[in-house]
């Protein structure tokens, strides 16, 4: 605990120091005298991105730092001392290598280098002549784990043996190491992971490091896919219900148009519908947010399926229910909402939940038109990693929703069968009793096949909506 505290104090002190230096150098730049020609001008300082699925530099994880400087006119350089920012650590096999370049030509430069976690020293056997570029590469060095901008400082020794301060080098932006990165790093060092990844199949589909990296990234996609279906599906319910009413309407023409809606949507691929909506609407000058449009297309598609589910559900309700309601003087709307729909809901929950699952899986089709959802996230991770593992993780996320729902459907169906089979017993008394099996028109418990006698015939009992 105390070490962490001390560490963060040091880090924050360092950060304010860096800030101070930055401000001071700015002041120097603006108001100070123009700096005299230097013996060594720092050209660049960079670090190689070491993020597993990105292009940033993370602290605490070994990287390669490249530092370049040009030797000034009439100067020679014998030694360079680079000082690492506090908190820098060395990875295994850390070393420093300097290359001297004359234009594009690489010059033979014997050198003797040392490296510690404080810094590195490059000692050239022969002084490096003026006008040459010195490129120092420091391998397997880990910048501080705390995020921030870090600079290399130091000194150099010129041809005359004078030691001079190095000018401030450009800062390297470092982001702090995340849980994922530290786990990934830990995995990198495990022998079993090494063995695992030496198996082609396991490496390509079940790469442990990529699993760890995919889980948090794809979580974003998972949320977005869930969002699509959690908004789209509830939207589809009232539309589907309305269409199912129209499908059973008294007027032929209304039924006709409702059936066209249902049959066209169910008879064409959702993929095609998505294309028509996403590429067709812009032609009409309509521009809708693609996520919203995705929801609308999904809702419309699902409403056609739900309409049929609801219709079958309503028509599976025994006609005696309509007659009993009618005989009590209830009108069509009262009958529908107080008697028929409450019974229908319980019957359609399993099929409607299956439809929910289908729709949830179908959100993936929206990847084709660039809606950010699970597939898009997985695809881009696969593209950047060249590995199938993110797809496997995406599959896991889909199953996370679909498997429990499938299980729920199963148990609900069982419960429903028990309830509709009249097998439940009175709250207080257990008593054997018979069902009305002798009745020729005993209420049907079966969901299918739906009979539609309330639409045909006298038209008195059917929903008149």
């Amino acid at each position, binding site marked *: 605990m105390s070490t962490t505290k001390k560490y963060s104090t040091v880090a924050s002190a360092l950060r304010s120091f860096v800030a101070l230096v930055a401000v001071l150098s700015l002041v120097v730049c603006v108001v100070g005298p123009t700096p005299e020609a230097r013996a060594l001008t720092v050209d660049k300082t960079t670090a190689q991105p070491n993020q597993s699925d990105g292009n940033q530099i993370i602290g605490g994880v070994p990287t390669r730092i490249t530092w370049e400087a040009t030797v000034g006119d009439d100067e020679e350089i014998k030694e360079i001392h680079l000082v690492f920012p506090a908190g820098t650590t060395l990875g295994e096999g850390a070393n420093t290598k300097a290359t001297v370049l004359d234009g594009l030509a690489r010059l033979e430069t014997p050198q003797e280098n040392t490296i510690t976690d404080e810094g590195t020293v490059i000692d050239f056997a022969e002084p490096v002549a003026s006008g040459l570029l010195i490129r120092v590469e420091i391998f397997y060095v880990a910048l501080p784990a705390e995020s921030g901008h870090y600079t290399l400082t130091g000194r150099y020794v010129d041809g005359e043996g004078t030691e001079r301060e190095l000018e401030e080098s450009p800062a390297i932006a470092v982001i702090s190491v995340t849980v994922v990165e530290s786990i990934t790093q830990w995995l990198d060092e495990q022998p079993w992971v090494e063995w695992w990844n030496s198996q082609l199949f396991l490496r390509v589909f079940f790469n442990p490091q990529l699993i760890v990296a995919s889980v948090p990234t794809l979580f974003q996609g998972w949320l977005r896919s869930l969002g699509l279906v959690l908004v789209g599906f509830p939207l589809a319910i009232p539309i589907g219900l309305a269409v199912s009413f129209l499908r059973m309407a008294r007027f032929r023409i209304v039924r006709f148009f409702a059936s066209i809606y249902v049959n066209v949507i169910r008879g064409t691929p959702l993929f095609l519908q998505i294309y028509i909506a996403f590429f067709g609407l812009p032609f009409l000058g309509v521009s809708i947010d693609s996520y919203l449009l995705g929801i609308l297309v999904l809702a419309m598609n699902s409403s056609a399926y739900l309409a049929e589910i609801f219709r079958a559900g309503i028509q599976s309700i*025994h006609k*005696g*229910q309509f*007659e*009993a*309601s*009618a*005989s*009590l*003087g*209830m*009108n069509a709307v*009262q009958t529908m909402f*107080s*008697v028929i729909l*409450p*019974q229908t809901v*319980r019957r359609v929950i399993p099929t409607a939940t299956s439809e929910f699952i289908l729709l949830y899986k179908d959100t993936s089709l929206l990847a084709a038109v660039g809606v950010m959802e699970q597939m898009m996230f997985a695809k881009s991770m696969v593209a950047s990693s060249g590995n199938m593992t993110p797809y496997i993780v995406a599959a896991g996320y889909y199953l996370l929703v679909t498997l429990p729902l499938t299980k729920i459907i199963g148990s609900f169906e069982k419960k429903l069968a028990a*309830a*509709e089979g*009249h*097998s*439940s*017993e*009175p*709250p207080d008394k257990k008593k054997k*009793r*018979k*069902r*009305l099996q*002798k*009745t020729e*028109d*005993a*209420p049907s418990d079966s969901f299918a096949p739906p009979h539609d006698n309330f639409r045909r015939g*006298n038209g*008195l*009992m059917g929903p008149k909506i």
Partner: protein
Amino acid sequence: MSDHHEVTDKAVVRIQNLHKYFGSLEVLKGVDLEVRRGEVVTILGPSGSGKSTLLRCINLLEKPTGGEIWFEDTCITDPNTNINEVREHVGMVFQSFNLFPHLSAKKNVMLAQRKVLKRSNEEAERIALEQLAKVGLSDRSEYMPSQLSGGQQQRVAIARALAMDPHVMLFDEATSALDPELVRGVLDVMRELAEGGMTMIVVTHEMGFARDVADRAVFMDEGIIVEQGLPEEVFDNPRHARTRDFLGHII
């Protein structure tokens, strides 16, 4: 003979020359029937003779093809009549009970009171419990239909119809779906109802009930009323061969 309740002169249901076709099948071939306030009429006849169809025409569950039906001062076959208003006053009990399976016994009795008669929740509940008590089911008011025996379900169905304060009750083979030991309870309720002065049209195969409770027995065959009269006359001295045939088979 039932002299325990009063039959008035006022007609509650009047059927004139009623015809009903199902497609090309003529099921009712000109039926005339008048039922007066307080009267208990039982309709007998072989299967397929059109008894149910006749009963269902009275509250327009079936739409008559021809003829007229009057309920009190309303011609219900007039297309301008709001049939739901008529149905409020015409109770019907079905062979298959047709309770609402998602509602408890009490809620079954309350629903139409609330929706159709717009009674307050408290009033509907009070009346529901009253009616359930009348059919002997006070202790079953919170049960779901699936937890009740057929006989109990049918009694709830009767309570449900009675809660609407009907002017006439139609019974279509109310006991045919029941196990023999459960029939009695339902018949007792119907008998009490008759004694209480309810106007009733009862399609039944229960000859004992028809004979004891009814003021009039109507025998139907092949879509017409073959003969009608006091139950003991029809049962003991049938004038028509078809009636004799039918009764011979049953009794």
